[in-house]
């Protein structure tokens, strides 16, 4: 965990004080809602269907127990006792009073947290691998670079009024757990043959109305040139991105219009002019690296008798271990994924009590480290195998031990029409229907990895384009319908899914998923995942089955 120094703390305190004054002016009637809107959006405060929504930044999805408890307490005091973890590793409170927001920001600042740039046309919270520092796959710790970008982008004077919002993701493993290729900038840590650290730079991916998998515009950017290069990309975008139509204002449209090669050329020309003056000194990167409290691991052996015995004794624990644990870089440790997708629950929601429990577990068994995944789950990145049975039992008591990570009921869903002013259709009840339909865990495991992602509108907050099965809510003359897509992926093999056929009414969606799964189980060869089968066969056999009785 990065330790804030006095400067970092004062920066947050000043920003919170500024917002307190601005809210004061609004409450005193000195400014109108129209004038206030841009001000509040710069601090992640939205006016939604029923109430204000405050989006709290969880930079690169990393939290300590104190911070998690502060979020729990805010949920209890100012919301309805819960919070919602989003696909951008943030946390949203959906029932906030305007008058309370200054106090909330102060409480956040007290634990080194904020809501800066969680909204607005600026550089948003950076997404990073939730397994950072715990997986053996990584080349370097992406949190170091994420934190450096967080600082560099905070109240950036030139890039706080871009044509549109701007999202950066960083991954340092061959396996991408950040959806880097559908971000405005995706950075993939690479190491050159001579050992130099660098990034593959992908620009212009994105979802929404016009989904793109971003092209690579530079195969290898030396890591110490990152900030001058970012400056060049952002400047080309700020100057030449479209501002006449907000649907066409994201950088992906500029990159697509110019072509990746021409865009890259313009960036190179600008980068040359920016020069080393735009870079952070190596000493600052080293300082940030050092400000991440080192994790001290015990020297353990690979095999834990306690863990093996617990698995043999308790099939429920064994199932959870099979589905929710991931290999750790150190012997005797494991990465624990905590599913926030309990059957019938709202995906991504956690109650204040659940947050407190996760904080306790991180403190007692998890090296004070908690992560949020872009798939709306939580992670305890460093747990000893010996402690897993206890951790599982505690999670079970709190309703957090659903053994479904990466399985069919581990569904991403945006808040949809239940909360969001933009939505055309509900997303949460559809996710709940599907989860209930596949409640049988034996069947879920037989199906294996299957990522379903649901959005309540074309803006694609639920990432439906990159779902193995994507579901998009649409409004047809006041009725909610759902369009299915197949074959999308947000991982290293990123792809945008293909439309299956005409949209279905809400009550037919879960059943249609069942049909798709049957086709997969019939067609699959060997160890093929659902996604692999779709890629091999195309959508035709799936389409035929779902629409068989439509004619």
């Amino acid at each position, binding site marked *: 965990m990065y330790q804030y120094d006095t400067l970092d703390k004062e920066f947050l305190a000043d920003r919170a*004080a500024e917002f307190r004054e601005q809210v004061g002016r609004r409450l005193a009637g000195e400014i109108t809602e129209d*004038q206030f809107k*841009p001000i509040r959006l710069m601090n992640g405060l939205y006016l939604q269907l029923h109430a204000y929504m405050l989006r709290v930044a969880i930079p690169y999805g990393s939290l300590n127990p104190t911070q998690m408890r502060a979020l729990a307490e805010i949920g209890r005091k100012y919301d309805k006792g819960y919070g919602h973890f989003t696909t951008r590793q943030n946390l949203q409170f959906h029932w906030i009073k305007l008058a309370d927001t200054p106090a909330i920001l102060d409480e956040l600042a007290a634990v080194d947290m904020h809501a800066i740039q969680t909204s607005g046309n600026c550089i948003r919270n950076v997404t990073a691998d939730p397994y950072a520092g715990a997986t053996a796959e990584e080349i370097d710790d992406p949190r170091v670079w994420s934190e450096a970008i967080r600082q*560099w982008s905070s*109240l*950036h004077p*030139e890039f*706080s009024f871009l044509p549109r919002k701007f999202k950066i993701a960083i991954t340092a493993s061959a396996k991408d757990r950040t959806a880097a290729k559908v971000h405005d900038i995706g950075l993939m840590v690479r190491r050159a043959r001579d050992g130099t650290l660098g990034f593959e730079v992908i620009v212009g991916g994105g979802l929404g109305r016009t989904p793109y998998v971003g092209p690579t515009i530079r195969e290898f950017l030396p890591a110490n040139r990152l900030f001058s290069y970012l400056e060049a990309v952002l400047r080309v975008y*700020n100057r030449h991105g479209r501002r006449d139509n907000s649907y066409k204002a994201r950088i992906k449209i500029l990159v697509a219009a110019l072509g990746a090669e021409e865009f890259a050329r313009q960036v190179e020309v600008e980068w040359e002019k920016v020069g080393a003056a735009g870079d952070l000194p190596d000493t*600052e990167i080293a300082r940030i690296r050092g400000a991440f409290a080192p994790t001290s691991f015990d020297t353990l052996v690979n095999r834990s008798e306690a863990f093996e015995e617990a698995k043999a004794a308790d099939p429920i624990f064994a199932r959870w271990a099979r589905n929710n644990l991931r290999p750790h870089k150190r012997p005797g440790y494991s990465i624990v994924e905590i599913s926030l997708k309990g059957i019938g629950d709202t995906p991504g929601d956690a109650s204040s009590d659940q947050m407190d429990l996760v904080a306790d577990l991180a403190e007692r068994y998890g090296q004070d480290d908690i992560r949020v995944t872009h798939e709306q789950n939580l992670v305890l990145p460093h747990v000893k195998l010996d402690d897993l049975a206890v951790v599982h039992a505690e999670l079970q008591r709190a309703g957090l031990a659903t053994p479904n990570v990466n399985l069919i009921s581990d569904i991403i869903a945006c808040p949809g029409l239940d909360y969001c002013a933009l939505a055309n259709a509900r997303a949460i009840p559809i996710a709940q229907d599907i989860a209930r339909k596949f409640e049988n865990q034996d069947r879920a495991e037989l199906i294996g990895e299957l990522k379903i992602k649901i959005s309540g509108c074309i803006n694609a907050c639920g990432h439906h384009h990159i779902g193995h099965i994507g579901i998009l809510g649409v409004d047809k003359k006041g009725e909610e319908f759902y369009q299915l897509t197949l074959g999308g992926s947000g991982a290293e093999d990123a792809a945008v899914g293909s439309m299956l056929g005409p949209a279905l009414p809400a009550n037919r969606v879960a059943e249609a998923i069942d049909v798709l799964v049957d086709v997969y189980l019939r067609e699959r060869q060997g160890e093929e995942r659902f996604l692999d089968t779709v890629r091999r066969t195309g959508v035709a056999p799936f389409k035929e089955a779902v629409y068989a009785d439509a004619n």
Partner: protein
Amino acid sequence: MPTRIKLQSDGTFVLAEDPFTHVGDDEGLPPGDVIISLTRFQSDGDRLLSEGRSVGVRIEPAEEVETLAYDLPRIAVVAVAFPKYRDGRAYTAARLLRERYGFKGEIRAVGDVLREQAGFMVRTGMDAFEPADGSTPEQWAHVAHRQRHVYQRAADGRLPAFAERE
């Protein structure tokens, strides 16, 4: 005489008399110092300068400051336009004028200029402001000096956090 908020070299903000008149492309030229569009500057600039006036040029967001590169030493003011406060191209324009072209004259924010933007404007090198929200020099100073620390280098020469830490 009209006024604008001016950032002085000691970091204070004052309401200062504005000797310049904004002149539209279709308007006749009044005597004295004027701020005109880039188009008009390209056709009339040499003549106006030869008359001994001070001349300012208004840059719209889509116009690039590079166009002015050779004329900058003769120009007293570059007015960077904000047709909407959300249009952030002027920040880039100001930074390039200061950092890349070493422009020493006044960079003035005009249009939908709100006090919430003060910090960003000052940091990118703007030093004169025509606020659309009736805000005062005191309010500008308050916002501009609000953050005790900044994280990045920009055109105002403030020490970024990483340099403060050294």
